[in-house]
């Protein structure tokens, strides 16, 4: 026991001496680590890695797939796969009300959503709630067309596709303003 204590004491003294009597020297730059170090962990992503998940759609239409759909087809799909939660016309619930053109009413696609592309993106990734990700692109175009027509945004009979969908103007877009609060004493 005493030997161990002496050994530890000697080691501490030697270490202190070696480091200029600082018990914990700062990491040396010689270790090669800098704020710009690149570690190169992981593996390169292949096109297949990216394509399996890259389903997002931007307001400018980037990411929209081929195919097309109409409200007429969408109405049938909606009745089969969506009406249980949203009602046959998209207003009955019990889940989110999807159809309204009256801005004094609860948030719906017609009175609150700023971009039509978002309707497509969301349905494709997350609906139907109990079977997400099971709809074909054609079905998603048709459901989007059905909902936009029901909200009186799309002229009856319009075919939605990668060109026509991003061109749809949503009434609520003009209401959107960026948050510009940065703290300080103002309450907004």
């Amino acid at each position, binding site marked *: 026991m005493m030997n161990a204590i002496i050994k530890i004491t000697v080691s501490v003294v030697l270490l202190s001496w070696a480091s200029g009597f600082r018990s914990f020297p700062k990491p040396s730059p010689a270790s090669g680590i800098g704020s710009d170090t690149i570690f190169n*962990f992981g593996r390169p992503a292949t096109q297949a890695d990216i394509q399996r998940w890259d389903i997002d759609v931007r307001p400018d239409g980037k990411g929209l797939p081929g195919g097309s759909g109409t409200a007429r087809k969408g109405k049938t799909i909606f009745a089969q796969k969506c009406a249980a939660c949203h009602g046959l016309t998209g207003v009955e619930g019990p889940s989110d009300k999807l159809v309204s053109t009256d801005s004094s009413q609860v948030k719906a696609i017609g009175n609150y959503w700023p971009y039509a592309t978002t309707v497509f993106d969301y349905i494709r990734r997350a609906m139907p709630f109990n079977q997400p990700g099971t709809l074909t692109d054609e079905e998603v175009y048709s459901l989007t067309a059905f909902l936009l027509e029901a909200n009186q945004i799309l002229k009856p009979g319009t075919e939605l596709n990668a060109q026509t969908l991003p061109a749809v103007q949503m009434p609520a877009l003009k209401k959107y303003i960026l*948050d510009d609060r940065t703290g300080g004493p103002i309450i907004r």
Partner: protein
Amino acid sequence: MKPISGENPTLQPIKVSRRKLLGGAAAAALVLVEAPFARAVQVAVTQAELTDPTKIPGVPPGQVGTRSTFEKPVKKPSNISSRTPLQDLFGTITPSDLHFERNHNGVPAIDPAKHELVIHGMVEKPIVLTLADLKRFPSVTRICFLECSGNFRSGSEKLSPQDICGLTSQSEWTGVMLSTIFRQVGVDPKATWFLAEGSDAAVMTRSIPVRKGWDDAMIVYAQNGEAIRPEQGYPFRLFLPGYEGNMSIKWLRRIELSDAPYLTREETSKYTEPLKDGKIRYFSFDIDARSIITFPAYPAQVQKGWIEIRGIAWSGRGKVQGVEISTDAGKSWHPASLNGPILDKAHTGFRYVWQWDGRETELQSRVTDETGYLQPTYQELVTARGSKGGYHFNPITGWILKPDGRVLLSNG
């Protein structure tokens, strides 16, 4: 039953039949007995068997600790969220199993060996990272709060802090700085946004400014010293200090760099604020400063005399600069003591010791953050926004002390 072997062979737990243990009413404590498959299990014992803990050998060491059966803090779940019991907690770290939850289609079960994160888009070298890869990077550990921006409820004087704003919690998070990974993939200087996407049944997506990625964003795989819990994004999640919780995408599977935001469903139709001029404010990222007294608060009962008023305060824009307490419904204010260290974008504990004369009064707290923002009253917020709730609604909370010792939410 065989005695349970341990480091000290002279100590053996008392032999109690399983039937006897389970037969009693009112479970009061735990002892270890040996299960038929030779594994120790913890079983409740009745109060009657535990009148004197010095007369019965205690429980031997176990593999996993448990709460005292006398303590029952629980989250309060709904279909879409589960709220932290703020009034039952001490200090500022939320026990991981009591961290709030907000899910958009349930908690996914993910095998980390099969889970990958793809980073692509406007980058030089798109990559795929696994949990094991992330753990190889230099690690960063940081204590921060995480709050859902839809975190205000009212409507009854019998609401607890958990009911009012239980969608905020705090953890020590460990992971890798997103900037470290951004350097590796070579983010295009023209990229201004990135999309983060989860691997849940909502395939949750949010657009995040690239500057946040370079600033303090992390990918975290650990929480309070252990692997992050499934409810919090296992095997890893994005973590954006100070930003509304929805943006810290859980079960992260994809990051795509872009020169425009995606305007996803969450950041348009949901996490936005209608304003009184008919406008809709979007991309409100920062959590506004807020405080709440967690004691005394409903459903506590108090007695007149000395009371330590306690609570938490936080800001998504930096540090808490000060907390003031009013014991006269906001007429006068007194500085509270802050429990150090005061951390950036973190729940900060405050205390104010006060002597109650037993007459009805109202307690309030208000925080000022380091930007000089002073937490508003409910009426100031309603006047400024034209709405009585919604996202980023952070009013002063008042508690009425009744002469009989009940504590009720003011203007509930």
